[in-house]
C-alpha cells in the first residue's frame, strides 16, 4: 500500500495511473467498436451479441456477473483517470501564476492542447451515451432487450447525430495524443518502438473515429434500417 501511495504522491506517478487507466479505455473503445460492427450483420447478429455480453461466462458465472465486473473496472479506471487529470491540471495551472503576453506554439501537435476540455467533453458524452443507449432514459423509443432497434432508431435524429459526431472528434483527439502520451509516460521507449508510437496512436484514433462515425451515417442514409 505504501508503494501505491508513494507512486501517487508525485505528479510522475499520477501520470502513470492516468496512462494505465487511459490504456484500459483505449482497449475498451477498440473492443467496443468491433462489437458495434455487428450492427452491419443485421438485427439477429447484433441482438445476439448484446445478449452474449450479458450471459458472458455462464454457466461458471451468474447472468450479467461478467458484465457488471467489467463495468465496475471501467468505472474505477474512469474515477482514477479523472481524479489524476484534475489534480495534475491544478498543479500545472498553479505553476504559471503569471501568463505570457505573447505565446508562440511550440507543442508537437494540436491534439495535446485539447486534452483537458476534450476530456471533460468525453466525460459528459459517456454519461449521455449510457443514458441514451444503455438505460434508455434519454431515448425516445427505447425497447429493453432490442439493442438493434434502439441503435437504429436512436440515430434517426439530427441532434443525436451531431452530439455523437462532436464526441467522436473529441475522442479522436484524446486518443491520438493520449495513446502516444501513454507510451511516453509508461516509459515505453526505444529506438525501434519510437518509430511506431506516432503511427499507432494516429491509426487507433483514425480507425476508432471513422468506424464509429460510420454508424450514424449508415442509419441516416438508410444503409442499416
Amino acid at each position, binding site marked *: 500500500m505504501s508503494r501505491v501511495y508513494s507512486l501517487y504522491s508525485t505528479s*510522475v506517478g499520477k*501520470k502513470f495511473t492516468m496512462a494505465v487507466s487511459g490504456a484500459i479505455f483505449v482497449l475498451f473503445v477498440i473492443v467496443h467498436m468491433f462489437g458495434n460492427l455487428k450492427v452491419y450483420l443485421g438485427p439477429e447478429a447484433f441482438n445476439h451479441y448484446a445478449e452474449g455480453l450479458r450471459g458472458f461466462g455462464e454457466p461458471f458465472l451468474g447472468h450479467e456477473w461478467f458484465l457488471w465486473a467489467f463495468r465496475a473496472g471501467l468505472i474505477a479506471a474512469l474515477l482514477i483517470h479523472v481524479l489524476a487529470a484534475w489534480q*495534475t491540471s491544478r*498543479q*500545472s495551472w*498553479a*505553476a504559471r501564476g503569471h501568463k505570457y503576453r*505573447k505565446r508562440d506554439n*511550440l507543442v508537437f501537435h494540436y491534439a495535446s492542447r485539447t486534452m483537458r476540455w476534450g476530456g471533460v467533453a468525453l466525460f459528459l458524452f459517456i454519461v449521455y451515451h449510457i443514458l441514451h443507449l444503455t438505460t434508455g432514459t434519454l431515448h425516445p423509443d427505447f425497447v429493453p432487450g432490442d439493442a438493434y432497434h434502439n441503435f437504429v432508431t436512436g440515430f434517426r435524429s439530427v441532434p443525436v447525430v451531431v452530439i455523437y459526431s462532436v464526441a467522436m472528434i473529441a475522442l479522436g483527439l484524446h486518443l491520438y495524443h493520449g495513446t502516444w502520451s501513454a507510451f511516453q509516460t509508461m*516509459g515505453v521507449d526505444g529506438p525501434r518502438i519510437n518509430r511506431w508510437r506516432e503511427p499507432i496512436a494516429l491509426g487507433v484514433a483514425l480507425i476508432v473515429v471513422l468506424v464509429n462515425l460510420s454508424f450514424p451515417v449508415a442509419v441516416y442514409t438508410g444503409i442499416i434500417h
Partner: protein
Amino acid sequence: MRLKLHVWRQASPSDRGGFATYEAEASEHMSFLEMLDVVNEELESKGQEPIAFDSDCREGICGTCGMVINGRPHGPWKRTTVCQLHMREYSDGDEIWIEPWRADGFPIQKDLIVDRSAFDRIVAAGGYISVRTGSAPEANAIPVAREKAEKAMDAAACIGCGACVAACPNASAMLFTSAKAAHLNLLPQGQPERHGRVLNMILTMEAEQFGTCTNHGACENACPKEIKIEVIAMLNRDYLRALLKAG
C-alpha cells in the same frame, strides 16, 4: 534598422511589473544582447534604470542568458541561446515583445532576471555520483558502450538555462530533471545511486512548484541543446523501477 521593443520591467520580486516600450536603433551585425546593451547605454545616459538581464559567456555554452522573445524562449532560432541570436533575423520596423521566463518555480528577481536556484536544488538532490577522490582514475578502466556514451553526452549537453520550463504550457521541469538524471543513469558510474537519485530528484522537483508534464513536446522544441524527450520516458521508467525496489 529601427525597432519597437516592449520589455517587461519589474523593479523587485514583489513589484507588480509591466511592459515598457522603447525605440531601438540596431545594425544587422549586432547580437540581440548587444542591441539591448545599446538600449541600456542610452537609458543610463538619460539617468534611467537599465534593463536587467542575465548573460555571461555569450557563446551559447553557459546557460546564463534567457528571455522569451515574441513568445519563444531564446527567440526564433532553433538550437540557439538568446546570446547567439543575431539581429539579421529582424528588419526595420519590427515590433519585439521581450518577457522573462514565466514560472512560479522561477521567481522574477528584476526585469528579465529570474531566480533559477530551484534547478540547483534539483541537481543537489541527486545529480552527482560518489567517488573516491585522489588522483584521476585511468580513463578507460570502466568500459562504456558507445551507444550509451553518446546518449549520456546528449543528455549532459543541458546547460540548465530553463527554456524547457519557460516553453512548457504546464511550466514543468521534467526535461531538465530527466536530462540531469539521464546523463548519470546511463553510465556505469551512475548505477550505485540510480534509484535514490531518481526518487530524490523527482521529489525535489515536485517541491519546487513546477507543473506536471503532459508530453506536449514544447520543451524539446525550445531546448537550445536539442535534448530529446526520450530522457523523460527514461525517467518515468526509472521512477517505477525505483519504487518497486524501494518497497
